[in-house]
């Protein structure tokens, strides 16, 4: 069973890397940070991640950010530039290009279509309070683990 356990250990490690991306996509993530979450070198992580999930961690991060942006463009009362930054992009140009490539329409067009369909908007400050990823490895005590109180808009 040792070969099977090694495979499982690898999958647990790459899953930790993927969960790390899902938690921290809004931060400026480096491949080294993602690899550290798995306890792997960058090279080893990219290879094992791609074997498990069919794409590189960098591509997964891009898709996660675009997916989060789609959600916010649908429901949040924020403009495209604000949403671009909330989901972790630093350049509006690269955000728009990548979004268009993956979704098929530009972020502005996507937002216009979604709002025309009449989904109720959630106040932007609320999204900013709750849309952020979790703090990294906070001390596990009842008082420090308390999340901020719900923020009125």
């Amino acid at each position, binding site marked *: 069973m040792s070969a099977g356990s090694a495979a499982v250990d690898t*999958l647990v490690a790459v899953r930790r890397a993927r969960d790390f991306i899902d938690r921290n996509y809004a931060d400026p993530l480096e491949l080294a940070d993602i690899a550290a979450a798995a306890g792997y070198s960058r090279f080893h992580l990219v290879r094992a991640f791609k074997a498990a999930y069919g794409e590189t961690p960098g591509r997964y991060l891009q898709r996660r950010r675009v997916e989060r942006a789609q959600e916010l463009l649908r429901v949040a009362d924020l403009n495209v530039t604000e949403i671009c930054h909330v989901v972790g992009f630093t350049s509006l140009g690269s955000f728009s290009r990548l979004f268009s490539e993956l979704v098929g329409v530009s972020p502005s067009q996507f937002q216009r*279509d979604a709002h025309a369909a009449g989904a109720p908007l959630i106040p932007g400050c609320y999204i900013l309070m709750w849309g952020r990823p979790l703090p990294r490895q906070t001390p596990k*005590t009842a008082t420090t683990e308390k999340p901020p109180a719900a923020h009125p808009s």
Partner: protein
Amino acid sequence: MITKLGVATAYVSDYDQALDFFITKLGFELRTDVTMENGFRWLTVGPPASPEFQLNLTVPGPPMHDEATAAALRELMAKGALSAGAWNTDDCRKTFAEYTARGVEFIQEPAERPYGVEAVFRDDFGNWYSLNELNDKALDQQAMADAFGSSTETP
């Protein structure tokens, strides 16, 4: 006619770790723990607020699974592909705070959704679950169609 779900199954890697996760961290109760003559262990737990529901915890392997099946299940668990469902709570943010303090690993903190407030966590074995505080629209088909209709055009 079926009336309700009585038992669901989550695969786990170890029975003692599973009891620690579901009872100590999530606050579930032990429902049944018996080992049959063939070695099969029937272990179920459940939330105190749902006394008739049992979550069955099973380590993949004999006598239920051949080795290839067990290995496939262990891999799916490890890579995070399996879920045993969505839990309901009266207060998602409060439960999130309690569970986080006990070391439960959340991959998405509480967020407003058309159907309520939702967070996503993993158990200690890689399975993911939603944690939902449903609103009055969650089971309203028309409201959900309106809320999600705009997203059906995208592939």
